[in-house]
């Protein structure tokens, strides 16, 4: 019997492991419950009922973007604001997976682990959310994009606050169109293209190729190449938009010479190109205030020489999200280390502040000396190629455009860059789908938003909102 008792310890251990598992489950559930309860699959909150008692959503200047009155969700009075802020704020459904009303639905409605969703009304404490976006800039960006599909992201590269994050096509969350699922005009309307759209980056990717060359090849900036407009790499042709002649890196970037960067990519090889691209956010997702971005992709493991060269100019299978490009520009402006963007300034309720946005640094993308060189090159590019005045009259902008060829249809237009101004330190990226020209289409959109931002900053200097790290 003594023996039986001793041996029964085995089953007692089994039971203890079982109890430990139960405890683990409870802890795990308490840690993740607010994330899980906000999942779009949750039928309890997927419809407007989930927002019946939800808190307010404000923009950075205190403009009410959404509120609940008598059990209904009311959005801003202006249709333009509603449409412009849709992808950040969200709608009654949880279709826009990166929107605040999807990710923070449980916080908005005062969900907590203790009471779950069965919380009685008299103890309900909903929370209000203040965003960093500016409703004015949002509408400016929306009207600048017009009927075209695209994305605009502008953020303060010193503090990380996202001032403008606009995506088209959009719709009015107060009157969701009935044909949204069937009408081609609304194709991808549930996507916030800034975070979830991936496009071939085209010539904007030359920033990555330059950084790789400066990192891995000694004295890379003085490498010379005589561009004749086209060349043969591998067995296929490789061509430029223009004949650049004998160029060094600075001139090649300013004139956006494909051949130069194609050869740089070839010389670096797939391994070093991939290493640098990964340092600069490719093959990786960012999580921004709980919203997971799509993955920007650089994969040349199966590329031949010609394809490797094309990858060096952001073609082949290279893909980037707009926000990834904005973060790269921010890194260049910030000495190689980007400040990470965020859009939630504060979540606050009766029980206190649940979350408040703060400045955080990303991982190092390049050493400070390389960042300085790219800074100068982008400055030089605007000065010699686009013209400082064409770009933006109120801010001193450094930038790089891209015109990304796609398999079918007209090329996508890109521009990414940053302002040099201390009081208005903005990094940005703009994509206009099928815009055909970064210079002709993307820059005017960027200009409109940056001018509006500069004007707004004279009222509320952005540098004052949060001190630099």
């Amino acid at each position, binding site marked *: 019997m003594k*023996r039986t008792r*001793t041996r029964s310890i085995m089953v007692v251990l089994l*039971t203890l492991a079982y109890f430990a598992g139960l405890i683990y489950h409870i802890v795990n559930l308490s840690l993740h419950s607010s994330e899980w309860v906000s999942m779009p699959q949750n039928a309890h909150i997927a419809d407007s009922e989930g927002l019946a008692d939800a808190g307010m959503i404000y923009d950075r200047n205190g403009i009410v973007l959404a509120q609940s009155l008598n059990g209904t969700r009311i959005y801003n009075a202006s249709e333009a604001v509603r449409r412009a802020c849709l992808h950040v704020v969200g709608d009654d459904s949880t279709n826009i997976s990166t929107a605040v009303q999807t990710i923070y639905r449980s916080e908005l409605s005062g969900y907590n682990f203790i009471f*779950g969703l*069965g919380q009685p009304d008299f103890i309900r404490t909903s929370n209000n959310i203040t965003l960093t976006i500016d409703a004015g800039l949002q509408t400016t960006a929306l009207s600048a994009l017009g009927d075209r599909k695209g994305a605009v992201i502008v953020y303060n590269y010193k503090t990380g606050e996202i001032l403008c994050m606009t995506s088209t096509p959009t719709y009015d969350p107060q009157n969701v169109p009935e044909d949204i699922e069937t009408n081609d005009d609304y194709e991808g309307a549930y996507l916030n293209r800034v975070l979830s759209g991936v496009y071939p980056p085209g010539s904007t990717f030359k920033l990555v190729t330059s950084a790789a060359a400066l990192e891995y090849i000694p004295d890379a900036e003085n490498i010379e190449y005589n561009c004749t407009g086209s060349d043969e790499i591998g067995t296929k042709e490789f061509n430029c938009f223009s004949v650049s002649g004998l160029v060094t890196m600075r001139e090649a970037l300013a004139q956006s010479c494909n051949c130069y960067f194609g050869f740089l990519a070839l010389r670096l090889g797939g391994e070093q190109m991939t290493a640098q691209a990964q340092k600069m956010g490719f093959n990786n997702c960012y999580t921004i205030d709980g919203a997971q971005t799509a993955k920007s992709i650089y994969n040349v493991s199966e590329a031949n020489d010609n394809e490797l060269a094309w990858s060096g100019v952001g073609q082949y299978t290279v893909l980037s999200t707009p926000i990834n490009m904005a973060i790269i520009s921010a890194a260049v402006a910030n000495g190689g280390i980007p400040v990470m963007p965020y859009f939630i300034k504060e979540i606050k309720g009766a029980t206190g502040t649940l979350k408040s946005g703060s400045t955080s640094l990303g991982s190092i993308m390049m050493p400070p000396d390389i960042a300085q060189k790219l800074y100068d090159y982008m400055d030089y590019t605007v000065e010699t190629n686009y013209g400082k005045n064409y770009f933006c009259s109120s801010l001193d902008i450094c930038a790089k455009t891209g015109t990304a060829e796609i398999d079918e249809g007209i090329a996508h237009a890109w521009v990414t860059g940053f302002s040099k101004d201390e009081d208005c330190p903005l990094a940005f990226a703009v994509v206009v789908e099928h815009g055909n020209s970064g210079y002709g289409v993307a820059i005017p959109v960027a200009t409109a938003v940056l001018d509006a931002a500069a004007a707004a900053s004279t009222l509320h200097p952005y540098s004052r909102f949060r001190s630099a790290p």
Partner: protein
Amino acid sequence: MTAFISLRYGRREKHALVTLEDTDREILYPVLFWENSIGRSRTSDIRIKDPTVSREHAVLLRRSNGWFIADTGSKAGVYVNGQQAQGRTPVYIGDQIRLGLSVLTLRRADDTTAYSEREYLRYKEAKRESRTVTGSVLLMLITVYILFLTAEAVLNMNSFAPVIAPLGFVTVMWIFYAVSRRFFKRRCFELEALAFLLSGTGIILNTVHDQRQSFVQLAALVLGIIIYCFMLWFIEVPDRVMKWRWLIAVGALGMLGLTIAIGTNLNGAKNWIVLGPVSIQPAEFVKIAYIFIGASTLDYLQTRKNLFGFILVSGMYVGVLVLMSDFGTAVIFFATFLVIAFMRSGDFKTIILAVTAAALAIIVVLSVKPYIAARFQAWGHVWEYATEEGYQQINTLIYSSSGGLFGVGLSKGCLQYVFASESDLVFGLATEELGLIIAVLCGVVIGGLMLYARAVITRSRSTFYSIAACSAAGLLVFQAALNIFGVVDLLPLTGVTLPFVSYGGSSMAACWGLLAFIKSADERTYSHRHAKTVPADDDDDGYERSDDPDYTDYTEQAYTRI
């Protein structure tokens, strides 16, 4: 809850039943258990430090008709009053037992010195401290709990339909109580109370979602209770179990074979037999048979390590279950096999060998049929398979989060619309609608069955009961772990039921059958009848003679503790 309070009674082995006195060396050995191993080995219950005594020399057993001694392959043999003991030999008070050169005399516990006096005082002290809850109070608490939930269901659904099954349940529970007290003279209901708590929760969850299911569940509960009572009668006499065990083994295997032959494939596993309107899962009932076979062994006190026959039977069962693609049940059988094998042999080598063999078998099966692995690919990253293999798990997690500690209310949940919510996902359903507290309580109660089994095993009348109780409880706990941790993605989802709670008639009935093993290990189960049938002057122990009335009461208590 309160049921556990009453589990905290003093351990039986604290006072001796009888004693063995070595008059030559003036050593007194207290005999603490119903089955005691005697030998030189350190793990013997009665250890005799005499080189002429074998390591495992003999076993001293108490049966309803007295004390017996049996030789367990000693070198020097066992002699009772000078006669060599062959097989099981009766021993009476005053008899001399010779083991090697040691001579022991069987004495009553109160015959000898102050030992029992001291124990008696200690007992009185323990009695003052102990608080026990009577069965009627426990069942009353469960009745209140069920009626409370029923009222909630009526309010939430605006209909009186959901009162039928819960009221039926409460009626069944009290009929069981009355019959048990009157006809079976049972006094303790802790174990049954735990099972009723779980069964009642399951019936409530079913009645608000599908009334037909709750009636099935109620019928299964009645069937389960009948099986439970039958089992308690059947295993009362260990010799009867020994006689029947091979028949049971073959019968159970035949049942599994029949399932393969004429079984129906429902939801991915061919483990159903459909007979007109009734469909049953024979594998559930085979669990009961398996514990019969595993625990009933003629090896006294696990002194031998021969597990060959048992391993063979186990291998066949698990093999057949794998053929049926019922992997969850196969794993449960394997875990139960490990428990029984270890309890019987105490041999780590056997366990390691079995686990290695199983691991190899899994590798072979997976390399031959790789699609089986695909069924479990979502494990650990269910969110990536949100619409496919991870669908049930992510819904469980989402709706568990929605429930909070107190739940969103009966019938107000959304998990009910997910497939198998009342069976496989019942833990999530309970969390969503009744709250995490009640759901976890159900989980804890199942774990509590194991603690109960562990608390009673050393007081059981035979190692058969101890092993059966531990393995039955181990089986239930392991199954609960597979179910709960399967749906919350800590383990792969195998689709086994949560004992007593999940919808499933076969499962419910079989769980009550398994409960009988745990109950039988508690000596109080059979004690009242023994106190009546065993004459007071019987020489099987030394309790009945004492001038102190309080003391007599105390010894009576040892049998019929209330």
